[in-house]
């Protein structure tokens, strides 16, 4: 039997999809309105899944008292109410598609000491979601 724990968080941020490797016309064709010059925003929902043994003393895989402040410090403070392209260093040189945001958040959370990070899932809107499990 394998047990995992998933916690959902929210952050609101703006971004613009624009690749310096493509010309203006290609950027416009590939990214469409996501390429509009001043950016746009989303209410992102972030699901963080951790796994590991359930500690018999606490009944928990990870204490939310540890997980919540870790995610807050590593991700929410850096992403919430920010322009991802400028305010998050990694996206100054990487297009902030939600695929790349998943990978970056996974990288930031991988060192969570109390349990193993299993998966990061992001809902960019109620219609789009993206997952990354480190593989």
């Amino acid at each position, binding site marked *: *039997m*394998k*047990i*995992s*724990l*998933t*916690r*959902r*968080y929210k952050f609101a941020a703006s971004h613009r999809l624009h690749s310096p490797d493509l010309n203006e016309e290609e950027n416009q064709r590939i990214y469409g309105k996501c390429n509009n010059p001043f950016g746009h925003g989303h209410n992102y929902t972030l699901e963080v*899944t951790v*796994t*590991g*043994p*359930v*500690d*018999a*003393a*606490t*009944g*928990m*895989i990870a*204490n*939310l*008292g540890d997980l919540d402040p870790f995610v807050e410090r590593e991700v929410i403070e850096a992403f919430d109410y920010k322009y991802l392209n400028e305010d998050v260093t990694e996206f100054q040189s990487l297009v902030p598609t939600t695929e790349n945001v998943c990978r970056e958040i996974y990288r930031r959370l991988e060192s969570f000491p109390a349990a*193993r990070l299993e998966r990061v899932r992001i809902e960019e809107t109620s219609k789009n979601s993206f997952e990354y499990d480190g593989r």
Partner: protein
Amino acid sequence: MIRITRKVEFSAAHFYQNPQFSAEENKRVFGKCSNTHGHGHNYSLEVTIAGEPDPATGMVLDLKELKDILQWEVVDRMDHRHLNYEVPELAGKIPTCENIAAVIWTLLEPKIRKGKLDRVRVYESDDLFADCTAGGDGVRK
């Protein structure tokens, strides 16, 4: 292979306290979840069964049958109950959603006659849930 999922809800009370811990330790580790008189949640349970549809019925498992199993095994046991006091399967365990998911898995697994129990997901609230699956990694202590 097809996966089918049925959802039910139950409402229950619980608190988190380890009798081996001091009052201060319980407060530090479990925070407001340690309040002695407990508090409650509307739990949401999603149970997923995996298998091949029976050629005669087109069904992996009749959802009516699954609905009845969930009613008898889970809702009748846990709905409008205090999980610390009234559910024998949770006796001696802290009733976290991890432990509740594991107990529900153990209750349901032998009752599923067609298909296989694939996942038990217990939502304590919209922003917190535990999954129990058959995998070998992350086994309970």
